């Protein structure tokens, strides 16, 4: 049956199982919006800014594991998507971004609203397509979804010239297999080399002081069950990155919580002193390793990752295993069980766990609470209690993001949605909206900064429009707090351009948008507001928590420094005697 290219787009998206599109129309993409109107079958969330649409698609994907889809017009619509595309690229989020484009014959003419979005996004996409023939459309869309979701996931851009969406064609929608058969050079390696797996098992069996270091790859592969089994079976403590959070429950006795720049003392000490580091879907980011020379200096390293280019990139590893994390962990478990589960140095391993417990007791994650001024950490703890640890959290970028990471204990995968690789302020609210769309059954809290919130706050209106009951907690310190903290610590308190004390009345702002607004200025008001917010299910709530303005995020390993240079809660260094051991 002959139909427009635009209709083929919607048909193929439906075939791919797309339920939601986040977007905003304009001239070059109008045909597709018309087809959407005529054909239905997919719900559309009209964002108020394309950046919002992009982060919503990401939030949806991060919360569900499904491919997130955003659709915008050419030119400014497309350039407004650049930040979300880069964000999805850095954190390996499966996403498809559809951009309208000027008609083919005008491409390269500096036509109205023309930009070379393929060129602009080339270094920040997993792949991109310019559609040049209407018959290719269903193939390209299917390939885009395949590429976005398989291997190391990532963003794919489909640039769609207007005339292609208008041309008629009777091309049938191919099956997935047929559509991807021409991608002859793209075959993610999934199974892991058996020789390497044997080597890994040997190291795991022999280690005295092993640590599992888990990143976002474990979440993408849904390897939480395998991870838990391996950790418990072989008595291995587990630390996660911001992206790996929830892959291992943080209330588990073997959990070391987060490592790296704002990691726990005990996670960083465990990594510093371990003799075997098992990296699972993690990429040795500089925020994690600090000074590379002093990262796990005594350890042999096993690195399991779907992306061969991630392995031995920043740190040389002893046993590289390229493959799907879930499949490889299963093989490792099989191999261990085949041999009848033995830990060669069981006694040392228990002593190792004991040592870690000592570290945990010595420098737990704490803060000094106050009954006069609201401490940001207190707000997060209260949110943890009110939600019984069951909410999905989406964060902006800054101190509040780190407090969310530290003072909420995450227990299931995809529970902490945050911009790790790119560190995009303004991510939290739209990503939270996308997450809530994808997981309407779970309460979603946005932990935002007063600075971050202002960058995408127009999306409050979107949440009102669709009655999306996200709960936004603004950790309002009147500062670009994270930058202020660095200025305090490393620039002798020269607070250059970080004061945000001129700011909107967030309660009135919420009300003006049709949302509910609350404000807390005293610690005693925090709980009440949160409980009130939990009862509101028909619109978003904005909570303005006026917190201690100059509270800092500790522990902290200054950028490029070693774990030995860690600064603890009170701004002091830990007792050197407690940090290093050789056994």
């Amino acid at each position, binding site marked *: 049956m002959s139909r427009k290219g635009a209709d083929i787009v919607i048909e193929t998206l439906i075939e791919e199982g797309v339920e939601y599109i986040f977007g905003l129309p304009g001239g070059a993409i109008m045909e597709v919006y018309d087809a959407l109107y005529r054909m239905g079958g997919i719900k559309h969330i009209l964002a108020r800014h394309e950046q919002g649409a992009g982060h919503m698609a990401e939030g949806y994907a991060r919360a569900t594991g499904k491919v997130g889809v955003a659709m915008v017009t050419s030119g400014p619509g497309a350039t407004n998507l650049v930040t979300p595309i880069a964000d999805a690229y850095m954190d390996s989020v499966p996403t498809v971004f559809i951009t309208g484009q000027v008609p083919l014959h005008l491409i390269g003419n500096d036509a109205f609203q023309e930009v070379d979005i*393929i*060129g602009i996004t*080339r*270094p920040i996409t*997993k*792949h*991109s*397509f*310019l559609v*040049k023939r209407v018959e290719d459309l269903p193939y390209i869309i299917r390939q885009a979804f395949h*590429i976005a979701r398989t291997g190391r996931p990532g963003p794919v851009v489909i640039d769609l010239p207007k005339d292609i969406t208008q041309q008629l064609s009777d091309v049938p929608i191919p099956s997935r297999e047929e559509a991807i058969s*021409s*991608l*002859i*050079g*793209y075959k993610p390696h999934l199974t892991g080399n058996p020789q390497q797996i044997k080597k890994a098992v040997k190291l795991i069996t022999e280690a005295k002081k092993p640590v599992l270091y888990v990143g976002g790859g474990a979440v993408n592969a849904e390897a939480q069950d395998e991870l838990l089994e391996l950790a418990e079976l072989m008595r291995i403590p587990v630390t996660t990155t911001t992206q790996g959070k929830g892959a291992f429950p943080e209330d588990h006795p073997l959990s070391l919580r987060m490592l790296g720049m704002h990691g726990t003392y005990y996670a960083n000490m465990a990594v510093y002193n371990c003799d075997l580091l098992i990296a699972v879907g993690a990429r040795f980011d500089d925020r994690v390793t600090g000074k*590379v*020379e*002093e*990262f*796990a*200096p*005594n350890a042999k390293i096993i690195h399991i990752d779907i*992306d*061969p*280019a991630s392995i*031995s*990139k920043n*740190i*040389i590893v002893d046993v590289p295993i390229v493959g799907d994390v879930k499949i490889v962990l299963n093989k490792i478990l099989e191999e261990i069980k085949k041999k009848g589960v033995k830990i060669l140095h069981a006694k040392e391993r228990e*002593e*190792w766990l*004991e*040592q870690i417990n*000592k570290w945990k007791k010595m420098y737990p994650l704490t803060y000094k609470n106050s009954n006069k001024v609201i401490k940001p950490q207190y707000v997060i703890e209260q949110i943890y209690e009110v939600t019984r640890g069951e909410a999905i959290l989406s964060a902006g970028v800054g101190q509040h993001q780190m407090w969310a990471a530290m003072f909420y204990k995450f227990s299931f995968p995809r529970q902490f949605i945050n911009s790790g690789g790119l560190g995009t302020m303004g991510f939290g609210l739209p990503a939270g909206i996308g997450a809530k769309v994808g997981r309407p059954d779970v309460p979603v809290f946005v932990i935002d900064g007063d600075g971050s919130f202002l960058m995408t706050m127009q999306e409050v209106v979107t949440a009102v429009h669709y009655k999306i009951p996200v709960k936004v907690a603004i950790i309002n310190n009147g500062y670009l707090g994270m930058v202020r903290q660095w200025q305090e610590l490393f620039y002798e308190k020269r607070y250059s351009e970080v004061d945000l004390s001129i700011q909107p009345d967030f309660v009135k702002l919420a009300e003006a948008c049709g949302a509910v607004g609350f404000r807390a200025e005293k610690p005693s008001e925090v709980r009440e507001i949160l409980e009130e917010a939990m009862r509101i299910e028909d619109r978003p709530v904005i909570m303005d928590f006026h917190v201690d303005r100059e509270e800092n995020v500790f522990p902290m390993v200054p950028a490029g420094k070693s774990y030995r240079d860690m600064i603890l809660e009170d701004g002091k260094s830990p007792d*050197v*005697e*407690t*940090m*290093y*051991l*050789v*056994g």
Partner: protein
Amino acid sequence: MSEFTVIETRKLREVRKGATRKHIINVTVRNEFGVLARIATLIAGKGYNIESLSVGETHEKGISRMTIEIIGDDIVIDQVVKQLRKLIDTIKVRDLTDIPHVERELVLIKVHTPTARARDEVLRITEIFRGKVVDVSQETYTIEVTGDEDKIRAIVELLKPFGIKEMARTGKIAMKRELGWEENPQD
């Protein structure tokens, strides 16, 4: 109580540093829109210059082959190779640098030859290098030579004193040797 002794260790992790040298990389690609730009972007993203690049079709429809020469740190190049492999449109990527291979380049050189003596000399040099004179004017000879890097360098050096007016090179193409000999007897 733990029996681990608590002392400060200053052991350092070894940080890998590679040698910097010229690499020659073969890339087989699906000849799709933008594939060359993608490869160039990737290499530029590592802060490297492409020394030479040649692209051409293979015997298979829709499949092209590129030979890329870059100077860089072995470890970063290894990373480049892995990332090239990750591109959706690349089919095969191989760093030939340490593998026995044949490489050839074709050069056109326009030499200043105003006198009979110069013409004689240039002709002789051309013959020695098994080149050809492909264009002649009163003032110039244009010479075509193929060969590996050393041969091309040698003839260019010999022709320089006459005055090279223009030069164009195709960039290297390379292929792995089947028998793995270091040197082919015919070279």
